[in-house]
């Protein structure tokens, strides 16, 4: 691990965080990815680039997002102080917009005219379509047909924003398959196309670049927590699919040894193959979609199907920096089940008047356990990564089903 120009924790020159990361891509993608890396590192040193991105984040996205002390939720959890980082209040309703605008600006700087993106829950697809509309770029979003069914509202939003949504009918028809298809598209058209990857995943420099674009969350939250709580939090809690919202909020606290970093994966229905997406609970080191990391796989190295109530966490691999943070024990990873998340979803709505995304509801669900571990007076910071409008139909269906079973 080397330190970079800003004194921050960067992967080594080959894109490794410890033994995780790297660049495992087909030959055709090597040249475009090397070009992307050069341009990104160049843009990162360019004050004009960060000035323009800051302007967009402030006046278009609505940053800084508030830090809200959820007092009623804290009381319900046994008297802890809970602070919610309100990424749900960004334009488009999730943290995904931070990265989408950063990469879309970078694509423009590189002279690209066309963006391809993958999406699971649809939030990254919406954020990409939004950034493309704003910056005048063509946008194609690949989305598994199973996810299109689960997140129909977001499909319509993307189309309203002028994006083309391409259904992906291969494999498990979810996020993993959408990434395969987006990469295939990029392989065929590297000259005019930028692949706007939405999580801290994939080949170097994506995990670094996405972390950096999301690290604004942690910088703001750390400052706000010091102002409001008068001290650093005891723990920072975030849900982890690919892990971009988590790495974005963890990043500012990594050098604060008293702050525990807790990632919450999707425990689905049970930790048995195919019924969950908790990579650290049921996975092994492997290589998927360009990076060496923890992967849910069978004995022969084929990727296992995953399940989660939330499309955004329903993915077989985790971002390589999370694998690294787990290997050094700097961060810890737990999971919340579908039922836990559903309960967290309702609890936040009733106690705080905030309807979270089902993804973020996994982090909310973990609060009760964290409150037990830390005891009263603890300060717990939770990244509320997105809002739940997209999920209300799914939840309505699930609650009706639960009522039917109960009666």
């Amino acid at each position, binding site marked *: 691990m080397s330190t970079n120009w800003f004194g921050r924790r960067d992967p080594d020159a080959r894109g490794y965080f410890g033994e995780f990361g790297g660049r495992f891509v087909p030959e055709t993608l090597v040249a475009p990815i090397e070009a992307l890396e050069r341009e990104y590192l160049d843009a990162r040193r360019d004050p004009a680039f960060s000035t323009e991105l800051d302007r967009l984040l402030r006046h278009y996205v609505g940053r800084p997002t508030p830090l809200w002390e959820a007092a009623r939720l804290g009381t319900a959890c046994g008297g802890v102080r809970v602070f919610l980082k309100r990424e749900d209040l960004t334009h488009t309703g999730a943290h995904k917009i931070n990265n989408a605008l950063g990469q879309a600006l970078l694509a423009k700087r590189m002279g690209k005219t066309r963006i391809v993106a993958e999406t699971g829950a649809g939030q990254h697809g919406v954020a990409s379509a939004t950034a493309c509309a704003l910056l005048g770029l063509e946008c194609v979003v690949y989305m598994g047909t199973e996810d299109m069914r689960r997140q129909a509202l977001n499909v319509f939003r993307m189309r309203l924003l002028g994006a083309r949504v391409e259904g992906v009918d291969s494999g498990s028809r979810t996020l993993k398959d959408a990434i395969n298809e987006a990469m*295939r598209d990029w*392989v065929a058209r590297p000259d005019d196309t930028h692949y706007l990857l939405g999580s801290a995943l994939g080949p170097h420099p994506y995990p670094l670049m996405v972390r950096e674009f999301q690290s604004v969350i942690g910088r703001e939250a750390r400052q706000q927590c010091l102002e409001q709580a008068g001290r650093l939090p005891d723990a920072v809690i975030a849900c982890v699919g690919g892990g971009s919202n988590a790495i974005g909020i963890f990043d500012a606290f990594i050098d604060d040894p008293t702050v525990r970093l807790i990632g919450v994966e999707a425990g689905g229905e049970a930790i048995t193959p195919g019924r969950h997406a908790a990579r650290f609970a049921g996975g092994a080191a492997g*290589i998927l979609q360009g990076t060496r990391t923890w992967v849910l796989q069978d004995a022969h*190295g084929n990727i296992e199907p995953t399940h989660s109530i939330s499309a955004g966490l329903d993915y077989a691999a985790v971002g390589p920096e999370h694998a690294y943070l787990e290997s050094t024990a700097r961060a810890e990873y737990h999971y919340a089940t579908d039922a836990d998340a559903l309960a967290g979803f309702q609890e936040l709505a009733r106690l705080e008047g905030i309807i979270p995304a089902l993804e973020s509801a996994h982090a909310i669900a973990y609060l009760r356990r964290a409150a037990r571990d830390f005891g009263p007076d603890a300060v717990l910071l939770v990244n509320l990564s997105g809002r739940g409008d997209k999920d209300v139909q799914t939840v309505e269906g699930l609650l009706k089903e639960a009522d039917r079973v109960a009666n």
Partner: protein
Amino acid sequence: MSRIDDAFRRIRAEKRTGLITYVTAGDPSLAMTADILKRIDAAGADVLEVGVPFSDPLADGPVIQRATERALAGGATLAGVLDMIAGVRSDIRAPIVIFSYANPILRMGLDAFVSRAREVGVDGVLTLDVPPEESGEWRRRFRSAGIDTIFLLSPTTTVERIRRAGALGSGFLYGISRLGVTGARETVADSAEALAVRVRHETSMPLALGFGVSRPEHVRAIGQWADAAVVGSALVNVIAEHGGKPDLLDQVERYVRWLQS
């Protein structure tokens, strides 16, 4: 001198265009793949690439994706593919190259894979998502087992990286003659010639060109610039069309002979 070196030496001595074939192992079954490989060998192919089915073949187009799905549904695994090769190796003259994504090999364990591959007579390995920069460990272990490490080159590969692949790889270089995923096309791209000229300038290692080859005129066209042509999706298509029929092996042999006509 590896079996692959011998094959290219012979191709050059005979002043002809070599033919390299790709099939997805396990489509329609591993037992049939064994027979298919014997027939392709009998039909005169110079190198046999054996594809290991993987759940997420992101460098492959629809034809090989479907073949992969059929093979996985039939229970084909990397271990099974190696067992199958063990059974046919002595009946086949041509060198055999394993064509795989990284994860199945990593899951088996690099050491276990290398030792089993050597045991069953694998001559070379091409790992689609392990470019030269990531290949250090892989290459060293393959070399110590006498197995060639084959690298891909594409129209976007820089001169510097062509040199690197030439220096680090062995056996032959596999040039992808156009952008995009695997799949048969009507004509061979102009980019094939441009790539071949650039490669020839940097290295004397044998060069095979593929991606889009389906007809004898494609093979002949490639022969103007490279040592051998690779046929993949088009052959996988023939196997898909005749997969369940009694004439499968005859069709495969006929197709491979026709490509060389």
